[in-house]
């Protein structure tokens, strides 16, 4: 009796394990596909940022979003809302969006844009909070009579990949008082920091993580980790 129960339990656990294994293989296949996709995007970026964007699969969505943004800009500028001027606006915005929709958003996948926009909106209050905090810090530095500044240049290697995210990070660094991005060379930021504490804050990388989170970057690094673990798992089996 107990033996049959034991066998049953073993069977069940085996089926559960089998299901889990199938599921894990599925997940890893998806992960591998995603990695190859991101790698494809990477290659495309390297090949030609400017002309390669033409092949972007998300062309229509980029066009529509660009059109809406530009039309809002036109309506703000124009201030005349009769039928004639609105139709002029639609024509002009259509021409500009047709010529330039790969310029504003290039290399953005079709499903990603909403996520990126939402995360970017959430990023702005965080950035504002950072600016206020470091503003007080710099004000205290400047107003204290000993002037305890320690200006230095730091080189800062980043894990970000696309141009847009790097520029967002560079401009965020410049916006926060006390630090200024001087140049980006081969994925290495050269930053002028006013103080040791400001530089340490930068090296801790909270801002970089936030920016990577916005543009959904460095995700495939984790997928790579999973794949490595899977290889070890297979070898063990």
């Amino acid at each position, binding site marked *: 009796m107990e033996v049959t129960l034991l066998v049953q339990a073993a069977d069940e656990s085996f089926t559960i394990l089998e299901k889990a294994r199938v599921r894990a293989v599925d997940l890893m296949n998806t992960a591998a596909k995603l990695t190859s996709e991101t790698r494809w995007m990477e290659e495309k970026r390297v090949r030609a940022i*400017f002309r390669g964007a033409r092949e972007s699969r998300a062309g229509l969505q980029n066009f529509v979003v660009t059109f809406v943004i530009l039309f809002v800009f036109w309506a703000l500028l124009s201030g005349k809302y009769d039928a004639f001027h609105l139709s002029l606006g639609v024509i*002009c915005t259509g021409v*500009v969006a047709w*010529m330039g929709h790969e*310029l504003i958003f290039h290399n953005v996948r079709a499903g990603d844009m909403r996520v990126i926009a939402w995360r970017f909106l959430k990023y702005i209050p965080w950035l504002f909070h950072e600016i206020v905090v470091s503003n007080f810090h710099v004000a205290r530095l400047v107003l204290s009579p000993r002037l305890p500044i320690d200006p230095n240049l730091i080189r800062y290697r980043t894990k970000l990949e696309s*141009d*847009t995210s790097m*520029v967002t990070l560079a401009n965020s660094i410049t916006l926060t008082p006390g630090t200024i*991005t001087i140049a980006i060379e081969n994925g290495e930021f050269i930053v002028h920091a006013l103080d040791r504490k400001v530089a340490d804050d930068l090296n801790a990388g909270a801002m970089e993580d936030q920016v990577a989170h916005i543009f959904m970057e460095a995700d495939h690094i984790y997928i790579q980790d999973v794949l490595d673990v899977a290889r070890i798992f297979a070898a063990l089996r």
Partner: protein
Amino acid sequence: MIYRGEDIIIRTISRMLIPFIQLYGLYVIMHGHYSPGGGFQGGVILGASLILLLLAYGYQDAKSRVPEKLLTVFSGVGVFIYAGTGFLCLVLLGNFLDYAMLAKILHTDAAHARSLGILSVEIGVGMAVMAVMVSIFLDISTGGVLPGEEEEKQKTAEEA
């Protein structure tokens, strides 16, 4: 002078700003009736956006967007639109550039026909000015030999 810039920040920011600059140029052309502006200013702003594109990306990468043969065609078409509007008035039994005659085909009164005639003329001026400014800039900054043309010339010479 026109080579591909290496600064990522300038390239990315100019890429994002160029559609807005172009839309502002078009706005200046279209609203010349109600606010300062018109064909000349709007055309120059449009040309400046293309020049920014050329400076940030270099001629090699931007030439699919700023083809220099099309610039020559555009400058001709701009003047043609202006003269064509005048000639249309001539065909409609008016004087040259007498836009009130356009009321016959536009189904409006004379004053609004004149307003629309001004608009079409401004569009022609804007096209001509944009194309000519970019073309002069390309000629002066490259000295007449466009980048990449030299190699093509050598290639054709070798083939011959």
